[in-house]
């Protein structure tokens, strides 16, 4: 052990605060060595992703902590759980799977976690402040918290998040420290037509291109519109964190640590300068789909990361563009949190979406819960993250399209995408 512990850290390490705190601290101490940290530091909020995967070992770990008296010492939200806690029976989830998922949920709520069950915790309860030191899991949430909110977290893996929540401590390393948050690679947007930059597709393609290019480096984007919405930045980060290991990006004039280039690079200079042109984004768009135009479509999946209320409103508009239509020929699934759903229920949107045939699924996603039929062959999505993982994880062909494409395809029961966005690229 090389890390210097405070008196209380040491007491936890030696078991004076119970078995769970001892286990959590022993893992933190080993992780401090892995990161080369010489001391631990406080965090004041956590988001736990350890509840997402339904495996025997994840369940065993959670139940061992809960049985060992584990209680979170800081406000702690929860990522998705492998179950729609409200609708799982209707969705045909097998009882034995559900009972294990319920045990997993119980272990985390017994430890005092707030049952938010969402992969978009930054759009719900307990949004972190600028500069707040936090310990978050879930790759898309990490990149959003660091980049868009300016809170500070590393990419914490499952188990580290709950250990940090119980002890309120993390190794003092990485993105918790200002020096390590400076930009490394300058990405200059060149000749992007305004029409392209207004479309949600642009942000997914930028995330795809950026993630693959920079991997775990910190990119600084120059030329991003100051009008980018929270949901567009969410889509950008989620794609970048799937194609790469991006935990933080800066966008000049958009994100809070990058009012100027000098601020983003902390007075230093870029290691590399790379120009991104429409043709790069078009290539990313072509790369993202494995299903061809005109293929029979089984399911449209929206809400990866979980849909916000604003996205439900956009969806309703896309549906209204096709009056009187329904998705009789393919399932249209939207994944969201209970908190966005609560707003949806209080609006006039839910009826309109239900009329089209939209199924709203709560608390979970198709990668973690068996809610998509095993015989599904073709999936369409507006999410770069979903498009990245679906072929391997669900064994399907995937087509990427924006919301309008997804709705038109759902109506027709075949993949159809508007290519006009790329005409001049």
């Amino acid at each position, binding site marked *: 052990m090389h890390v210097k512990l405070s008196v209380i850290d040491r007491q936890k390490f030696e078991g004076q605060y119970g078995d769970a705190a001892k286990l959590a601290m022993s893992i933190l101490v080993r992780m401090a060595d892995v990161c080369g940290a010489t001391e631990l530091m406080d965090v004041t909020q956590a988001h736990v*992703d350890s509840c997402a995967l339904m*495996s025997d070992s994840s369940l065993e*770990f959670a139940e061992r902590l809960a049985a060992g008296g584990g209680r979170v010492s800081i406000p702690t939200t929860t990522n998705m759980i492998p179950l729609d806690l409200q609708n799982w029976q209707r969705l045909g989830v097998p009882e034995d799977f559900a009972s294990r998922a319920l045990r997993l949920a119980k272990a985390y709520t017994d430890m005092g976690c707030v049952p938010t069950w969402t992969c978009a915790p930054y759009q719900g309860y307990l949004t972190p402040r600028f500069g707040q030191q936090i310990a978050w899991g879930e*790759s898309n949430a990490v990149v959003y918290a660091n980049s868009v909110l300016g809170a500070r977290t590393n990419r914490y893996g499952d188990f*580290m*998040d709950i250990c940090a929540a119980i002890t309120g401590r993390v190794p003092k390393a990485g993105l918790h420290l200002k020096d390590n948050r400076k930009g490394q690679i300058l990405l200059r947007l060149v000749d992007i037509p305004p029409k392209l930059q207004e479309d949600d597709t642009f942000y997914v393609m930028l995330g795809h291109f950026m993630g693959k290019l920079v991997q775990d480096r910190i990119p600084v984007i120059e030329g991003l519109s100051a009008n980018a919405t929270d949901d567009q930045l969410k889509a950008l980060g989620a794609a970048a964190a799937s194609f790469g*290991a991006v935990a933080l990006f800066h966008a000049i004039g958009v994100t809070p640590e990058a009012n100027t280039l000098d601020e983003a690079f902390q007075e230093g200079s870029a290691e590399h300068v790379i120009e991104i042109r429409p043709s790069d984004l078009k290539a990313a768009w072509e790369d993202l789909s494995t299903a061809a135009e005109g293929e029979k479509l089984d399911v449209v999946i929206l809400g990866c990361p979980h849909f916000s209320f604003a996205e439900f409103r956009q969806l309703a508009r896309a549906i209204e563009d096709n009056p009187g239509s329904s998705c009789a020929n393919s399932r249209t699934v939207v994944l969201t949190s209970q908190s966005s759903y609560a707003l949806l229920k209080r609006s006039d949107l839910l009826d309109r979406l239900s009329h089209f045939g939209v199924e709203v699924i709560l608390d979970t996603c198709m990668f973690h819960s068996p809610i998509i039929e095993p015989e599904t062959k073709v999936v369409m999505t507006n999410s770069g993250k979903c498009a990245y993982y679906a072929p*391997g994880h669900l064994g399907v062909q995937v087509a990427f399209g924006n919301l309008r494409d997804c709705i038109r395809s759902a109506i027709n029961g075949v993949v159809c995408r508007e290519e006009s966005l790329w005409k001049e690229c």
Partner: protein
Amino acid sequence: MERVLNGKPVVAGSAKGMSVVSTQPISFWGGLDPQTGVIIDRRHERCGEVITGKVFVFPGGKGSSTASAVLLESIRLGTAPAAIINAHVDPILALGAIVAEVLYQQSMPIVVLSQKDCGTIKEGDRLTIAKNGTITVNRSQPVCTGKAPE
């Protein structure tokens, strides 16, 4: 032909196995099936490969923070690689291996090597990893490259 490379142990332990080499990063969640030990990321160059019992050599992780939980489950099920060699420290993979030691007393060493040294390990090399991070590389047949031997 036997060579020794000096790596740095991230999760210390000893192991032996044949190498599976990739120059691409991977997310273990969505990239590895812990039930079978098969790489399932269709965008990865080693998709379809079984890495159980092999020494998996790749630059590092990417993507999901659930990678630690997938590695833990694959160690529990006995489908994990014998060891991992990366070009940079990946705390998420290290975490999975550390929790496996704590929960199941099962060790799966992780070593980091310089990118240059990583590049000298070829597919199918027999590797022996020691607790201090030393890697002994045995190649049964010299690879014919047309260049002078290393």
